[in-house]
């Protein structure tokens, strides 16, 4: 333990130096970082936004069923039920059949209420 602490201090130095050179913007930039995979997932979930709102937050009392009260598990169960025909609806059974199970899982994970 006693050895570890001064070591950390030592190798923090170049990072601090670098941060001074690059400027503070780097650190705010890093906090905004996302991966390509996250971008693809957001893009897929955005296919639902036309009807159910940006990021799944629909217009309240707008006339379309709201989905942002559902957990990811509940949302996936519903999407799969639409796809199999177990759950009736107007457009959703037709749309759910167009997505793979993996895509439906991604959508449910993206838009489901985070617990």
């Amino acid at each position: 333990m006693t050895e570890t602490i001064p070591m950390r201090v030592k190798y923090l130095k170049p990072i601090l130096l670098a941060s001074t050179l690059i400027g503070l913007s780097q650190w705010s930039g890093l906090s905004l970082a996302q991966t390509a995979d996250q971008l693809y997932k957001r893009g897929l979930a955005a296919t639902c936004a036309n009807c159910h709102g940006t990021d799944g937050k629909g217009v309240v009392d707008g006339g379309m069923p709201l989905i942002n009260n559902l957990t990811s598990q509940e949302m996936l169960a519903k999407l799969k039920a639409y796809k199999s025909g177990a759950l009736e609806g107007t457009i959703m059974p037709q749309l759910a059949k167009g997505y793979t199970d993996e895509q439906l899982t991604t959508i449910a994970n993206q838009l489901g209420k985070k617990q």
Partner: protein
Amino acid sequence: MDRRHFIGQSAAAVGLLAGLSSQTKAANLQKAEILVIGGGYGGATAAKYLRLFSKNTARVTLIEPNTSFISCPMSNLVIGGSRNLAEITSPYDTLSKRHGIKIIQDSVSSIDPDKKTVTLASGKTLRYDKAVVSPGVSLNFKSVEGLAQANKDGITLQAWKAGPETVALHKQIAAMREGGTFAITIPEAPYRCPPGPYERACQVANYLKQHNPKGKVIILDANQDVTSKGALFKKVWAEQYAGIIEYRPKSNVVGVDAKTKTLKLEVEDDVKADVLNVLPQMAAGEIAIKSGLANSNGRWVNVNFLNFESTARKDIHVLGDAIQIAPLMPKSGHMANQHAKVAAAAIVAELSGWEVNPAPVLTNTCYSFVNDREVVHVASVHQYNAAEKTFKTVPGSGGLSPAPSTLEGVYAWGWAHNIWADSLG
């Protein structure tokens, strides 16, 4: 320096290099000038999602001549008199206030793809690294003899681009003599909004049924048959508008006599009517044609469907009704919104140094009001097919309503409120 210390410094150095690398790419995203031309369903959505997908780091400027957005979907209800223009109008300033998008109220007079500049009607020139062009359609008035002047004089109206003509057309219908005839003409597909003319005929018939019961609607369709939701529309015409709506397929209108309000057809006899709503052939918005982007028969823009980049010009991405569509992909507002999200994600990926998503998905839903409350829909899902480099509809997915319903009427308004908020809110 002991070994552990050395590893520590190396790890920090590697981390630093990784940080620098991502910083450089992020800087490309942050430094790039992205111009979005046109604030319809495609352009407004692209501007907003470029900001959302870049976590508000991309510099986005939207160029749009109008002060507010007027929706083409739902505008047939204004023509039918059950809704007004204010109900289908949304402000643009939310895009600047909430999402930090710079909005320039102007129109684009030219694009120089070599210099990567855009010149505005006001004379100002802007540089871009990426341009998103979403100009909608242009109406080729020259495709019908006499139409350009008749429309200029307000004798015939198109009202296909929602706005003042939408209100003017309703006024013409409301002022029509008792027992008068309204004629709508439909050009050969492709044109913006395949079911739109048939929905419009329903809305006018619904108005006449209540206010001018001896009035008539004639649909002169250049196509072989109803191009969208055919069985549903025909059922409605027979059940709700018998004796009011007359449908004439294979009726190509080639001329208009404004003095006598007569339509000249290619083959059949002339048709005289009291109110003329002539929809001419359509092509990509003028700026796309002027800029050399319309490389499909000089009318539509071919794009790479992975990122919606024009196949004619690098770093110009084209969306919405202006593009040469993939098979079974409609020219609709919903589809333009979906194009925009694929393009926005691709642009963010490219500027971040990432591979563009190799498997994008698009959906379409389209609601048509058959009266002021009942609605029918068509829906589809389009998955990118890498082998054929196009979008293909998924077998077994999508479809039509079994019958008109008031529940779908509620959903149609829900769709409208949500897509307006998704594109502009």
